[in-house]
């Protein structure tokens, strides 16, 4: 089991803390000097760089929210002059306004390092053949995994997303051993491989799947059908991209690259800092990035941090898989609903994780409809058995969500499958 940067990944907690202390002090000074937008926020809060002497002082700093990034569009949060910027990435954003993130050469270097650590932690070496089916371009997935894999010395297939037939042909002919894509695309590929009877002709042994929510059950089903170990990877374009945190061989929680990113958990409503082990919104401070140095960025991801000793030997704090996004969260009939909860129920009941949630409002009351694809395993010539399953789905969803959902069983492959991010939710309410 290898490490990419063993010294820091396995450093003592006090060493990590010392590094974070000095890097934060330096970074706050840098941001104050180079990012007027954030300096203005600090001034509004009455905080000066000299007030920040260690990580303990981080709570004095103002938060940055997605709205700030939109306000500052296109380059109000850029921290380095354009001549030092070598690349940008951008998020698509559902509300129309984009966010643009800037990278200096050093930023790309540290990003690649973070991704290389993630790959090593998944037992990937320079012997591996890495097929990257994340989109290349403005999206960070493709170039992020590409950079890390290349840095590690793997043979990289820069496939980008889509063209499933071509993906499968390269996978077979070039004997890819590692698959990098979204978990929903991995599930789709797994399904297609099974259908086409290609299982014996592929050589995959590891998967690095991120950029969207997935569950333990989905992991188990992908692992079983592809015969691989599937590892989660976490990151946001705003913070560089994939590689902010990564799963080790334990596959329970993702180690945060704490020499570059400092993580906090807050209550999303009150913005109060919560102690380690509490469930809340993840806030990340970039300690080293210069092109787009975000301090106290609210990720909207709900998760739990843990500092328990990990069997892999790494000492970096672990974050749980995000349990939902505070902005993906649907409020239906006043109840918080996360799509991942619905997914969990479906997989437990033997259905594919391909589903669609439709929220509407009729007669001033919210309705929740879930479209679920029938599978050959669940189908029966006995209508009574199908209606019984449908009833049990409704009951399990009610137990999980606390509200009633209308279940609609539909024919397979009728729910639109995106090869990038899946569109899971259609909210028809005009609020």
């Amino acid at each position, binding site marked *: 089991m290898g490490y990419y940067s063993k010294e820091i990944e396995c450093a003592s907690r006090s060493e990590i803390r010392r590094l974070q202390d000095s890097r934060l002090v330096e970074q706050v000074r840098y941001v104050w000097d180079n990012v007027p937008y954030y300096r203005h926020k600090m001034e509004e809060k009455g905080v000066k760089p000299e007030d920040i002497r260690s990580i303990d002082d981080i709570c004095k700093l103002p938060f940055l929210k997605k709205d700030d990034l939109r306000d500052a569009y296109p380059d109000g949060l850029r921290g380095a002059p354009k001549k030092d910027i070598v690349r940008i990435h951008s998020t698509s954003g559902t509300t129309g306004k984009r966010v643009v993130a800037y990278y200096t050469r050093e930023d790309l270097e540290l990003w690649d390092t973070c991704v290389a650590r993630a790959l090593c932690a998944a037992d990937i070496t320079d012997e591996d053949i890495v097929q990257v089916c994340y989109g290349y371009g403005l999206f960070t997935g493709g170039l992020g995994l590409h950079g890390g894999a290349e840095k590690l010395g793997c043979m990289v297939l820069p496939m980008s997303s889509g063209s499933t037939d071509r993906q499968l042909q390269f996978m077979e002919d070039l004997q890819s051993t590692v698959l990098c894509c979204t978990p929903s695309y991995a599930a789709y590929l797994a399904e297609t491989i099974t259908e086409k009877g290609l299982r014996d002709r592929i050589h995959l042994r590891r998967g690095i799947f991120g950029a969207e929510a997935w569950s333990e059950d989905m992991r188990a089903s992908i692992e079983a059908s592809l015969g691989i170990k599937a590892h989660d990877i976490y990151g946001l374009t705003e913070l560089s991209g994939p590689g902010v945190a990564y799963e080790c061989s334990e596959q329970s929680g993702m180690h945060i690259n704490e020499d570059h990113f400092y993580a906090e958990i807050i209550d999303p409503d009150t913005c109060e800092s919560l102690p380690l082990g509490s469930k809340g919104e993840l806030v990340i401070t970039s300690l080293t990035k210069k092109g787009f140095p975000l301090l106290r960025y609210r990720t909207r991801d709900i998760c739990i941090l843990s500092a328990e000793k990990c069997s892999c030997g790494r000492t970096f704090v672990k974050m749980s898989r995000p349990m939902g996004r505070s902005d993906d969260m649907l409020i239906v009939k006043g109840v918080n609903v996360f799509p991942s909860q619905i997914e969990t129920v479906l997989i437990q009941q033997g259905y594919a994780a391909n589903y669609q949630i439709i929220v509407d409002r009729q007669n001033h009351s919210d309705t929740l409809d879930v479209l679920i694809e029938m599978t050959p395993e669940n189908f029966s010539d*006995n209508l009574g058995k199908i209606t019984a399953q449908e009833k049990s789905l409704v009951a399990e969803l009610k137990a999980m969500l606390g509200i009633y959902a209308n279940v609609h069983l539909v024919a397979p492959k009728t729910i639109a499958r995106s090869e990038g991010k899946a569109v899971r939710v259609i909210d028809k309410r005009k609020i």
Partner: protein
Amino acid sequence: MEVRQISVFLENKAGQLANICRILADAQIDMKALNIAETADYGVLRLITDKPLKTLSVLTKNALVCTCSDVVAVKVPDQPGGLAGVLEVIAEKGISIEYMYSMLSSHFSGNAVMVFQTTESSKVFADAGLSVLDAGEVGINE
């Protein structure tokens, strides 16, 4: 040989059944019996065709969810009281029936044919004195 039935998941959408029939027609498959059980949202189409395995494979290839099961086909005299007599025998023997439907054809000279889905084997029906048809007799020639 037992009589094989193919069941297909049907979404309640216009043209679904027409689509399936066209797929079968293009594959030169002849339907011998058809039955639909449905709820408001979906249904189960049950088919007996001359080529059950081919039917299964061609429908699966067209992304339809299907399953194959054995059913029992029993000859019933096409006259008043014909079915009553058969059902009385079944009831007497305590055979439980999940569902049943009829098969119409001019080939059974003066008889109708009922198809039964049951947990019992066709032998139980035959032992009870009922006239059980085998796969060839209902027109399966695969």
